[in-house]
């Protein structure tokens, strides 16, 4: 597996944001400052043998700490469970350098952020930066209730005019409607972050309402899960035949076979793991390739995409 350089940090503070969300402030162990990052960036944390990506929620000008917010997932496979139950103030952990697969568009005249639950995290740094620049933006944030709404007080204090909340529980329950998209003025770029169905529904609605594809942005926390994934074989041009189980990603199968395949985000967002396909039909699940590139059927992002045919011939 490829090893990337990591940064040792210690847990400076832990704040219980909501019953399910904890906010961790991470400070440098060895240096006085941490590498700079841009609004919308995330870091990968390496704890208990697991890699997890979390958005940085502090101001992009902050150099003395990184702040992340983690929701305890009901279906946690160890990441959020460990952070919530094992990590204490003073503990040392290793994190990656910041990466940004979800940058702000420099072309937008107005930025509109749509968040559900913990999906609000990348938007915090984005809004802090836009506010400093005097740029135009608004947030539409769906949560079950005010009590379960992470960063509620912070958002009310810092962006009272830009924040719109939708709480689905309670007497005055209000749901976020996709028809809100119809009201945005020309030059708007929309950004979606939250559960898979939330992003899929809003992306489809934006396309239906004639938003150009280039004005629609989204970030996934977890890779999309194919409903009926099947096992398949990949014939590499250098000789090996890799068998990919139905509950395994192609990338993981390559790495487990000892093959130094390239990768970075693992959620089909960055394109680092792209390999050429010589034969076979690819079932694309990434959000990196254009529709045209997907139709061409000559590349695959191994971290999320699979085979529609039983076999692929891969240039590697």
């Amino acid at each position, binding site marked *: 597996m490829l090893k990337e350089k990591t940064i040792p940090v210690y847990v400076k503070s832990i704040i219980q944001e909501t019953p399910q969300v904890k906010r961790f402030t991470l400070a440098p162990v060895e240096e006085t400052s941490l590498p700079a990052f841009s609004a919308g960036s995330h870091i990968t944390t390496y704890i208990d043998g697991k890699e997890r990506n979390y958005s940085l929620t502090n101001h992009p000008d902050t150099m003395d700490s990184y702040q992340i917010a983690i929701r305890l997932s009901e279906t946690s496979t160890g990441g959020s469970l460990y952070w919530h139950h094992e990590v204490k103030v003073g503990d040392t952990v290793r994190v990656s350098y910041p990466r940004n697969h979800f940058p702000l568009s420099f072309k937008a005249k107005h930025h509109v952020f749509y968040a559900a639950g913990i999906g609000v995290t990348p938007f915090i740094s984005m809004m802090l930066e836009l506010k400093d620049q005097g740029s135009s933006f608004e947030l539409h944030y769906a949560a079950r209730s005010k009590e379960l709404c992470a960063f509620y007080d912070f958002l009310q204090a810092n962006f009272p005019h830009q924040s719109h909340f939708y709480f689905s529980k309670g007497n005055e329950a209000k749901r976020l409607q996709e028809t809100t998209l119809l009201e945005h*003025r*020309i030059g708007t770029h929309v950004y979606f972050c939250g559960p898979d169905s939330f992003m899929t529904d809003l992306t489809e609605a934006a396309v239906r309402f004639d938003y150009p594809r280039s004005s629609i942005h989204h970030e996934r926390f977890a890779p999309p899960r194919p409903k009926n994934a099947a096992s398949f074989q990949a014939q590499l041009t250098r000789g090996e035949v890799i068998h990919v189980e139905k509950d395994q990603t192609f990338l993981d199968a390559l790495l487990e076979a000892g093959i130094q395949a390239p990768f970075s985000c693992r959620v089909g967002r960055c394109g680092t793991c792209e390999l050429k396909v010589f034969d076979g039909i690819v079932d694309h699940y990434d959000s990196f390739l254009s529709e045209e590139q997907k139709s061409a059927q000559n590349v695959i992002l191994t971290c999320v995409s699979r085979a529609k045919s039983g076999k692929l011939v891969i240039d590697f």
Partner: protein
Amino acid sequence: MSGNITLVPGKRHYLFCADEEGIKLLQPLIDVVKDGNISYEIQIVKDNWNPILSSEWLRVQKMGSFLYATAEWNVLKKLKQLAEDAGFSEEEAQYIGYGKEQIKVFCCRCHGISVLEKGQPERNCDHCGLLLEVSDHYSQLRDAFLGYVAKL
């Protein structure tokens, strides 16, 4: 900018902005949109045209709108700039010019900009006098084509 007028179908609101000659070119599209009972607006640019009014009109439009701008080239360039400032992307507008189009050429020696009619292969630089051959190397930053030395 394109000389082909094609209806981009399926948009939720169409905007037609044209001078008096341009509106005639757009009429077939306007008829299609009218017949289809699709939402649309028309703004006609006249001699006493006030760009501020066009700018305000463009800025209040919603996402999902599609703009057709048709005018004599010099007016069209101003309209295109207003539309881009309002936020219209290349995917949300079509610009159709008519008449004689003027282009700019960037002098490779003195970096001055000269204006000439499109199609003119050579031109003396207005600033240093060098005879320039107009290339197809276009700079978005300068909104000009690079002019090479025509004769050594």
